[in-house]
């Protein structure tokens, strides 16, 4: 009961696909098939018009407050730039201007995955309920950059174990010259000490912020670090609670921000 298309013919999946009823790994397979099958794309398209009508049938009256919340959120949310179409790269590239799921792009998958993580971490990825307005205000600048990095076409995710326990994860975009840092399960420090994040380049380490572990070490971040260059690294050290201007202890994790090949 796993793996292959039952019945052999992926064409029969168009309807199920249009209803998001095809789970992985069949979905990925079907999408690869779609990329080379114009008639299948047409069929999916027709199916989606039909399902959209189903959606129309369930329309409800939205709460008035929703409008203001969403419109306000757009003021603070950067848009994804239009995809640049490269000549001669076939349908898959053209479909970059396209539909969810028709874009076999790593960055998108990463962004999606991380968006979930970040939403869980701090509840600031994307729009968060207007109930959280105050917290959101503080998070706006950071949130903006988070969205920018996650939406970047060259977004890349790197993860590493922290020597003293836990995991550090970075999503970076060289294009946006920024990264988003999160960590999980960090060892809880005595109150006199704190984790500090550094961006290290040829000129040395610049402080990139104190890591707030008030959540008892579970998940921290997202922290935004801007101004990175290829070959830089992010490091985490243990410093006095007040923070340092230079690292005073060896790093407990180093993530090198390799350039994209």
């Amino acid at each position, binding site marked *: 009961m796993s793996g292959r298309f039952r019945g052999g013919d992926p064409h029969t999946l168009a309807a*199920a696909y249009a209803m998001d009823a095809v789970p992985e790994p069949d979905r990925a397979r079907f999408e690869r098939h779609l990329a080379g099958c114009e008639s299948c794309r047409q069929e999916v398209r*027709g199916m989606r018009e039909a399902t*959209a009508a*189903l959606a*129309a049938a*369930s329309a409800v009256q*939205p709460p008035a407050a929703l409008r203001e*919340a969403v419109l306000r959120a757009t003021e603070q949310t950067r848009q994804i730039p239009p995809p640049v179409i490269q000549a001669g790269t076939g349908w898959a590239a053209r479909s970059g201007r396209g*539909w969810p799921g028709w874009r076999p792009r790593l960055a998108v998958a990463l962004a999606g995955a991380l968006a979930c993580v970040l939403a869980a971490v701090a509840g600031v990825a994307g729009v968060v309920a207007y109930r959280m307005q105050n917290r959101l205000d503080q998070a706006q600048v950071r949130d903006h950059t988070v969205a920018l990095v996650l939406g970047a076409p060259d977004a890349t995710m790197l993860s590493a174990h922290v020597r003293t326990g836990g995991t550090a994860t970075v999503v970076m975009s060289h294009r946006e010259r920024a990264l988003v840092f999160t960590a999980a399960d960090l060892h809880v420090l005595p109150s006199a000490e704190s984790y500090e994040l550094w961006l290290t380049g040829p000129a040395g380490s610049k402080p990139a912020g104190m890591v707030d572990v008030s959540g008892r070490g579970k998940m921290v971040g997202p922290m935004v670090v801007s101004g990175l260059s290829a070959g830089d690294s992010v490091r985490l050290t243990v410093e006095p609670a007040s923070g340092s201007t230079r690292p005073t202890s060896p790093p407990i994790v180093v993530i090198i921000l390799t350039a994209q090949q």
Partner: protein
Amino acid sequence: MTGGQDGPRRGSAWVSRAGGPAAGQASSRPPADELGDLLAGVARGDHEAYAAVYDRTVGQVLGMVRAVVRDPAQSEEVAQEVLLDVWRSASRFNPELGSAGSWVMTLAHRRAVDRVRSEQKAAERELRAASAAIAYDEVTEAVEARLDRERVRRCLGSLTELQRESVTLAYYGGYTYREVAELLGVAVGTVKTRMRDGLIRLRDCLGVDA
């Protein structure tokens, strides 16, 4: 659903209504294009255009998400994410791949289904399979309560029972085609065919342009 928003209900402007005799309205062509034009404006950062897109789609986005997710608070959260997605990724809309309306609803449905599936832990799934019959009853009930459009109701009614069940379980229930097969106790291949036949019949009955 009472009150809250003044002004007329603006949920569904883009759905082309073949044979829907709107009083005194010369058959202006499906507003789908209009929504597409608005989206092009949104892609350029036009907030007014976005507000118009919002007004035209929010009712359907929220309604559909609610039909899938059920929990009202969570549905609202998902709907917000979807509506912000529309703002963020308007530049990705490509009219060659379908109407603007179906693009928005595709974003919405994908997110709604993701939410439902991510919440269903493996154990829960097993439990759910065990109480398949109950789940099915709930789904149909929830769906039918919301199918306030006579035309869609009529078109759904024109499907065979198996076609209709396959489509509603997948679309509103958020079930995968294999789960639908299990719920209905039929072969996977049969379900795929019924979904396809059902959607084709639905599409033809609704007169939506592909």
